């Protein structure tokens, strides 16, 4: 499959579009369908496509196992961290109202960060899982 020039070219054109779309889904989830989870899956799909066409080794060069591990943990830490911050600011866990003077602004900020955390961990886990399965072939 790696020798097929059409596939290679099309993949190289498509991947930036997929990545861009995932960012749109990530940050437009407040207004339309979508959010961190869907964005994370789509983001991972770009890497999976890349792995299918150029091989998993090529993906490992872009994201090494230790980076994936770091990202997997950091998304969850970001989400849980937002909750901890709201707790330290005197609110209940995940009470975004405390994040800014204006409760609405606080909600927006909280939801933005939380969705970002979801997106990061989901993308990292999906890529990890795919690479783990693909790497199992003898």
């Amino acid at each position: 499959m790696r020798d097929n020039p059409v596939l290679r070219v099309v993949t190289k054109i498509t991947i930036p579009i997929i990545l861009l779309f995932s960012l749109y889904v990530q940050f437009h989830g407040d207004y339309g369908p979508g959010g961190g989870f869907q964005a994370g899956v789509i983001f991972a799909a770009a890497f999976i496509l890349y792995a299918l066409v150029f091989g998993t080794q090529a993906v490992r060069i872009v994201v090494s196992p230790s980076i994936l591990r770091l990202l997997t943990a950091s998304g969850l830490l970001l989400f849980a961290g937002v909750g901890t911050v709201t707790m330290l600011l005197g609110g209940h866990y995940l009470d975004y109202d405390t994040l800014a003077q204006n409760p609405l602004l606080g909600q927006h900020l909280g939801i933005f960060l939380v969705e970002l955390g979801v997106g990061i961990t989901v993308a990292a886990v999906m890529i990890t899982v795919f690479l783990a399965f693909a790497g199992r072939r003898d």
Partner: protein
Amino acid sequence: MTLTQLPALQVILPLIAAPVCLLLRSGRLAWLLSILVSTTALIIAVLLLRLVLENGTISYTYGGWAAPWGIEYRVDIASAFVLAIVAGISTVVLLFSRVGASWEIKSSEQSLFYTAYLLCLTGLLGMTATGDAFNLFVFLEISSLSSYVLIAMGPDRRGLTAAYQYLIMGTIGATFILIAVGLLYMITGTLNMTDLANRLPALAQSRTLRVAFAFLTVGLGLKLALFPLHLWLPNAYTYAPHVVSAFLAATATKVAVYVLLRFMYGVFGSSFAFDSMPLQFILMVLGALAVLSGSTVAVFQHNIKRMLGYSSVAQIGYMILGLSLASVSGLTATLVHLLNHALMKGGLFLAVACMAYQLGSTRLADLAGAGQRMPWTSAAFVVGGLSLIGIPLTAGFISKWMLVVAVLETGWWPLLIVIVAGSLLAVVYIWRVIEMIYFRSAATADGPAQEAHWSLLAPVWLLIAANIYFGIDTQWSVDVAQLAAQLLFGVHA
């Protein structure tokens, strides 16, 4: 301020520690973090228990959104009691695993192991504390998925099939619970357990409610290994790493029992559960069958861990019997046995782990002569076994006694035969082990197998000592269980 945040901290702390643990490269550091977090969780649980005993039930709303719009944690005496059991057992097992897990788990996988362990702790604590039916499902899945991982980390390939079998049955159970929660939501419009409890009495005649009740019971029955839905349990306990067997045997099924009784008494209400539905009959029959069949099968096992697994099926039967009596005394017996069984099974599995490390096997035949070579471990096993049988001055006696009292009080005296028969069978299977370790000499005395390291023995004896302590000084455990049972009953009295 901090005190009001305790219910959240109880669950959030291990949850945050899990991703941190993943990033730690060294197994030793991961262990250190885990034990710190688990000890803190234990302190929080004890504080919570004191708080609820003094001031009554605590409600905590996530995101500051009032229930039923937001998610509520509801800690009452019963849940604080279970939280303390889970956090306590987790801490003792972690004390044990500093050395134990380093022998069982590859050093490259240790931080993954402790991450999964913390996640399992998170899930179990979350299931206990939550007051929201859907949130329960989410934390149930956290604890389930992490326990599949922990079981699959066992050295034997059969750990993989045991984990797979558990995954299939566990997911069927979780899906049944999901269906039940959906049906409850459909007819009431709420997911909050307290809100559900207020709205369900008006719907007592609804056929949809009956089906929801049935699905919830079956789903939780799969999780708590209620006979005949226990098929996953013996394999899972046998082939998991020894520390994992100890942790899961002492906590996972207990939490599921607690969730069942919380739904029966705190959500559906005892009048619906026992008057409109034939629950009493079903639970009584299944509980009795669990005691008899679990104990009988245990007698014929050649693997000591599998024997303890079947014994767990029987012990869960006792808890279900107490639950089925639909009386404060029966419920008290169940809650006391929740604690006592956690202490005895935790201690027994850890003692077996010591033998397995020193002798290299958990087959009964390979333990011959262990009494001379490992006197302290063997003695611990004997005391734990006596507690399992229900000999006076051990914790096991107290829970059996309370169950007998409850049975007599409610007039279901045929159950006495079941309880006595279960104890007699326990004498038989514990005796088989005692005979093997004290009265047979080792077939192959190769190598000077000797007593386990003190850092392994200390946690074992901690749990065994607790068995004796709670067998003599019953004031605390029985009082708390009784208060908790009264509170659970009072909801719909």
